[in-house]
């Protein structure tokens, strides 16, 4: 994870917040994004990637980059049954790849919207979560993000998920433990 300043204060703030949330992130140019994301997934031992059907995914050439790394690629909607979706059957090391509509720099939050191309459970049914975030989608505060998401005249999405770090549970001896239900990792690729 790069600690050098990106030159964009919102990006830098987001990176710092992601660290606080125990997520990871990197800032890359569009030409490198597909390769870098695929490499991160390969390094994390990902066997299968479930990708949101979104122009950003194709725009950075991610499906091909993943195949080059030997990672199995499935586009949303997957047609898989519930058990396989949640990792009870099939490979366990699955990565859900999302494309946030927005991100909140102050909190280290990505804002995911459900749609035909973007399942509402993409990030949480899988063991890993990679978010592909165009840098111009970053706002500073939660208030701004919610105002944009639920703007007057814009139909509310069926499900908006604010995700701030990998899943955490603090129920056993009141000490935060990762990964009770949702993804154990979260990696945000900020695309310039």
């Amino acid at each position, binding site marked *: 994870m790069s600690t050098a300043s990106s030159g964009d204060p919102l990006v830098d703030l987001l990176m710092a917040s992601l660290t606080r949330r125990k997520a990871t992130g990197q800032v890359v140019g569009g030409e490198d994004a597909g390769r870098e994301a695929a490499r991160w997934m390969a390094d994390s031992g990902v066997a299968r990637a479930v990708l949101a059907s979104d122009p950003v995914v194709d725009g950075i050439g991610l499906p091909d980059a993943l195949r080059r790394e030997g990672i199995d690629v499935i586009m949303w909607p997957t047609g898989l049954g519930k058990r396989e979706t949640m990792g009870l059957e099939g490979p366990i090391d699955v990565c859900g790849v999302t494309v946030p509509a927005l991100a909140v720099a102050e909190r280290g939050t990505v804002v995911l919207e459900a749609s*035909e191309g973007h399942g509402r459970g993409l990030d949480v049914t899988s063991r890993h979560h990679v978010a592909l975030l165009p840098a111009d989608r970053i706002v500073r505060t939660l208030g701004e993000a919610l105002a944009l998401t639920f703007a007057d005249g814009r139909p509310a999405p069926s499900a908006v998920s604010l995700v701030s770090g990998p899943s955490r549970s603090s129920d056993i001896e*009141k000490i935060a433990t990762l990964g009770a239900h949702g993804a154990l990792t979260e990696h945000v690729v900020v695309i310039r």
Partner: protein
Amino acid sequence: MSTRKRRGDGGVAYLDVQGTLRERTVDALRDRTLRGNLDAAAASWGEGRDSMRRDYGLDDMRERAREIRRSNIRNLPALLSEMQAKVREAGGTVVRAADGAEACRYITGLAQARGVKVVAKSKSMATEEIKLNEALDDAGIEVVETDLGEWILQLANEHPSHIIAPAVHLNREQVAALFREEAGTDDVPDDREGLVAHARVRLREKFAEAGIGVSGVNLGVASTGTVCVVENEGNARLVTSQPRIHVAVMGMERVVADWDEAAHILEVLPMAAIGQDAANYVNLITGPRRDGEADGPEEFHLVIIDGGRGALRGTEFEEALSCIRCGACLYSCPMWRSVGGQAYGSPYSGPIGAVITPLLEGPSSPASRDLPFMSSLCGACGEACPVGIPLQDLLVRARARSSSPATRTSGMAFRAWSRLWRRPSTYRAWMAGWRLMLRARGKSGWATELPGPGAGWTQVRDMPTRWPPRR
């Protein structure tokens, strides 16, 4: 699994409560493990809270949060109408349940009509209040709590200790033992990570099987008909995305007008609840899945519960409805920290529980009428409350409303007290008598046994009969 609880007829307090409130506090005080766990939990919360005040300006946010919630309660009927209309517009169904029994009937009926055999639940105080698990259980439907702490409690056959961290009174060894019993095998890890991983797999089976997912609602946003479900684990997301039907249960007072207000409350909530500036997952759900979407429930049902809340509007207890169920007052309360949540005998424990449980149940309800008295009125709760509810004042008002044999006796005593102490001559006479009694009972400046109500004093401490007290 449900021998502990039976369905009631609208009460809030648990039906399997044993002994008096005082007896339960005495039992709790004897439990060293409990005390250790509570202290650790409260200390960690306290550090987080201090950080929020120091680094994130929590104190400045409280005033606005208070104003927002008070205005929500003032405008409640209009907000609920709008909420209802918007949910229906989005394709959802809304049910306004007068009480817990009506809510349970609706949800059970829905499950039966759809042929659902398994219900997966994420944590919801409202569903504990209405005893939904018992109702489903009575109808032969399997209910699984998916919040890790709540599942642990379900296995242990116990009630939660705390609104946010329900299993805070259990430790790792106790949890491992429960998991072994549930899985029917000794092959369950001992370490924290291993235990969590084990639970992950067991509960995913249930998500896959469940025909209905039931969640609570932290906040309803009227302007778009959206329910907000806040969590850290991700189980609420699975509960609200995997089963074919989603039922959201919401207390009628948990609604804000618009997203400006919602943003503020959603920021304050994790600060007060867990001492962090964000919870891991905030799920904002508006109706069922849209046409063309490949996951998400096909049906969305919002059950809005009155259960006595509406009747509090316009009374001296109205501010209690501002509560956003963060649990800060519990952690800040010296009483709760000493005895834990289970001693209260209600899903709502701590200072807020001591106020609203008897209010929702009625002043002569045996299970809850003593609750407001189990407080030293220290005021730490009102100080900790992110929406500025003056809980210590509400506790005093709740005491005035309480009706029980004990309060009737004390009422007689205070009538006599009032007659004597409003007149200087009788007051002085009383004082002279009292000082004589003290001298008579004192040995070397201390009395170890006092008569009447004084016995409560000398049960655990001596009374100095001279001042400054003798060594």
